[in-house]
């Protein structure tokens, strides 16, 4: 698989979902400017949806910030994984940090050697950034037709993209066991805790299963 093609498919697919974000933000009474700033500055889909979701449900700004930040902690873990690979300083580290998201690390980690991994990170990070922001603006400006992600199958394209990234990583028994437990835990927690928590909770499973050889 070519790293450019991987990066482009992920960027377009995930970027297009930005229209749903833009539309949801405006529907929750955020201004078009605020929706676009969230995509430019926060730039982490799940956290952005969390901010909008909590405010729309009547939550306080602090509640919205806390939920969004908890969801964003995985980006810090991704950064930890990437730092020895990218070896960056100064402004390049600042730029890399901003585009450290599910998709850029996902494509990077799916590559076979270090040079391809670095390419995967930068191509996907920039690609998603560009498309996500453009589609956020489009969605916020009221592109109602594409604002219904279900009618376009976009709501299934997102988990399919994650699954495509996960697939090559299910290389041994340990990762399959972990995946099984992660599905169970995430779905068991979903009706019982605030949205977003079930995902981050699965980090604990990785720690438990990775603790012993």
């Amino acid at each position, binding site marked *: 698989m070519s790293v450019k093609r991987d990066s482009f498919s992920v960027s377009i697919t995930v970027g297009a979902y930005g229209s749903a974000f833009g539309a949801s933000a405006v529907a929750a009474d955020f201004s078009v400017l605020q929706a676009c700033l969230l995509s430019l500055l926060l730039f982490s889909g799940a956290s952005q949806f969390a901010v909008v979701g909590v405010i729309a449900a009547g939550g306080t700004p602090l509640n919205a910030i806390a939920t969004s930040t908890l969801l964003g902690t995985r*980006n810090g873990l991704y950064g930890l994984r990437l730092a020895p690979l990218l070896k960056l300083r100064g402004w390049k580290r600042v730029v890399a940090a901003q585009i450290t998201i599910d998709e850029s690390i996902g494509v990077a980690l799916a590559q076979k050697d270090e040079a391809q991994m670095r390419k995967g990170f930068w191509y996907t990070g920039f690609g998603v950034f560009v498309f996500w922001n453009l589609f956020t603006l489009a969605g916020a400006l009221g592109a109602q037709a594409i604002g219904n992600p279900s009618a376009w199958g976009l709501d299934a394209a997102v988990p399919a993209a994650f699954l495509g990234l996960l697939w090559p990583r299910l290389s041994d028994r340990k990762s399959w066991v972990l995946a099984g437990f992660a599905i169970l835990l995430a779905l068991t927690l979903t009706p019982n805790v605030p949205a977003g928590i079930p995902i981050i909770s699965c980090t604990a499973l990785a720690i438990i299963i990775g603790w012993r050889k």
Partner: protein
Amino acid sequence: MSTFWIAVIGSSALAFAIKYIGASVPETFLSNPRILRINTLIPVALLTALVAVNTFADKTKLVLDNRALGMAAAIVLLIAKAPFPVVVLGAAISSALAYRYI
């Protein structure tokens, strides 16, 4: 400052802080084999959870809808070793058809 601006600026600032701190932790932290092993498994755990939640959750409710059919198509295509764009497109088309006709 309005509720909206506090949420926008606060969450954006903290999101960047987390990303930057993650990128700045000393390399030696990762040389421990246990940390390395756990760190390799973390994406498996999170990607699996993201797949499960994005397929079967609507906020905090569990639902079985058009997305499940899209994911079934994606699994079949992955087993058939289809390329990534075909997997994603196949899932999207199956899900959109299910949304319209079921």
